[in-house]
């Protein structure tokens, strides 16, 4: 009896069962397409909404004049770009972005390399120091920059308090373009030295000590060792640090915003900070769009360079 029942359900399926079976067959045949698309469609839609759409939006924005209050932007063609390249203020900010960002990058690269040389010495405590120097990198910018900006206040700040206590003449830090630049570089150095030193260290340790020994046996002097073994061995890391560092330097503005606020009289007013103020404080969206386009094009050239060197050959 039970046997007969079982044969009924399997040998004479209903219309619904037949369709289901066909669906299962179809699913099995196309499984390798259905699963990926079910997974990837929602995820990539999310990225499309918040990356691709703003990108297109931004490209259009730079050719318009808009304060976000009126319903529609006004098309002004290339006028924003003309303003950018004819007004001294914007070009100066672009120059400061290069100068200040470049300075932070150069100082950071050299200092982190020296630190890496120290961390490479086989000592008991180096594991501790390696982590310790990394600590500033895991802190939020506003929290640590607050220490700097508070210490640098000419009247209430700790540094001038100390100088006064020693009988010296207080320095008007916030009114001196030299000192503001100096402290922004110091802050950037302090915060970024750990991760860079770790990368330099990885480069140093990737050089085979046996090769160095062999060269020494063959009579190579220190200069030759550096030039023929260390420089080629460190080249990939150096290229990586310089290119990604430059991309970061061309967009840096947090340090400036929290330490100097662009001052004194615009001496540290990097272009990215101007984009931030134009776009999100005074809602001059067209100008902000045009400025960020100029920065974006400069950065993209370096990004493409970076991909040429590091990604294209490895992902194949």
């Amino acid at each position, binding site marked *: 009896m039970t046997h007969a029942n079982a044969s009924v359900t399997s040998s004479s399926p209903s219309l619904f069962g037949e369709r289901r079976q066909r669906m299962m067959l179809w699913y099995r045949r196309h499984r390798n397409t259905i699963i990926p698309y079910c997974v990837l469609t929602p*995820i990539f839609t999310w990225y499309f909404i918040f990356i691709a759409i703003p990108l297109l939006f931004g490209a259009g924005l730079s050719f318009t004049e808009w304060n976000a209050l009126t319903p529609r932007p006004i098309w002004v063609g290339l006028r924003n770009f003309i303003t950018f390249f004819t007004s001294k203020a914007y070009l100066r900010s672009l120059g400061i972005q290069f100068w200040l960002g470049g300075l932070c990058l150069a100082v950071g690269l050299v200092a982190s390399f020296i630190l890496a040389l120290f961390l490479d010495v086989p000592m008991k405590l180096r594991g501790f120091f390696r982590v310790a120097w990394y*600590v500033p990198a895991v802190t939020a910018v506003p929290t640590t920059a607050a220490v700097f900006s*508070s210490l640098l206040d000419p009247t209430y700040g700790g540094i001038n308090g100390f100088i006064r206590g020693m009988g010296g003449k207080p320095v008007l830090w916030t009114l001196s373009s030299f000192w503001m630049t100096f402290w922004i570089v110091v802050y950037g150095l302090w915060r970024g030295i750990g991760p860079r030193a770790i990368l330099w260290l990885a480069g140093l340790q990737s050089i085979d000590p046996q090769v160095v020994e062999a060269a020494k046996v063959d009579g190579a002097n220190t200069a030759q060792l550096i030039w023929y073994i260390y420089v080629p061995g460190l080249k990939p890391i150096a290229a990586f640090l310089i290119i990604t560092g430059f991309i970061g330097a061309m967009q840096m503005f947090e340090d400036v915003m929290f330490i100097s606020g662009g001052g004194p009289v615009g001496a540290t007013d990097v272009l990215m900070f101007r984009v931030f103020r134009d776009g999100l404080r005074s809602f001059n969206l067209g100008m902000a769009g045009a400025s*960020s386009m100029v920065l974006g094009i400069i950065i993209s050239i370096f990004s493409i360079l970076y991909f040429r060197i590091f990604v294209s050959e490895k992902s194949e």
Partner: protein
Amino acid sequence: MKKLSARLVKLLWIVFMVAGFLVMSYPFVFGIMASLLTKDEYLVQGSLLPLSYQPSLRALLAIFQPIAVRPLLNSVTRTIWYVVIMSAQAMLAGYVLSRFRFRGRSVFMGAIVGAQLIPGALLLIPTYVWAARFPFIGGNNWRGMGGHGLVNNPLVLYVLSNPGGLLNIFLFKQATDGLNVAFEEAAAIDGANFWRTLFTIVAPMQKPILVTIALGVALGTWNDWFVPFVYLDDFKYQTLPAYVALLSTQGSVSNTDWPLVFGISTVMMIPPLLLLMWLQRYIIQGFASAGLKG
């Protein structure tokens, strides 16, 4: 003679490293010391190492008081949300892209790599405008008019995405490429479906890369001041770094409650510090892999 010079080098090394370490840790020490003062005491002292005569824990405990507990809760929920959603999407998409061969796969891969070329500078302003005009959200109609969209809307803390998230997909895909497929084939023969294979076979073996991804997201979200600072005015919706940024930049230097700023800052550094000490290997590895192997 040689022994002596070796000892000298050792001594120099220790002196240099300890001196550097003291300079490096000074801002933290200052922050902790300053947080023990009262607002007026701090301004009067103006010292490099402010010592309180009546130390109070007011600023250090402020994070649990009404003055800063909302930002703390927002920071915690936002970090947890992004860690979960970012790890999950990296795992799912990375796995699918690594193991399935389907039409259009190269388009997805191209989009991931291409998105890494987009500088953040280009997205900053238009993302804000787009968020303000986001249709059907925050009182907006289908044309994005009439309301404030995602601006001043707490939803903005949880919905934005950036090209870095796509990089996580790439990292998981690369890691899975290096994994022997035999385990998954054996599971499939035993009747395991897609989800079962992913969660019981692949995920446990991919723990290192998942921890790396989750840690990167956790640190990045916890320390992100920009999104809440720019998009949200209401105190209720702030996160800790944005709240600190508000406290320290609003008003003049003499009006700012610096001990409060340093108190909140000091306490909010504790979770990243613990993560760094506990999982340093993954943080450092992740930093290196994002750049070099990526």
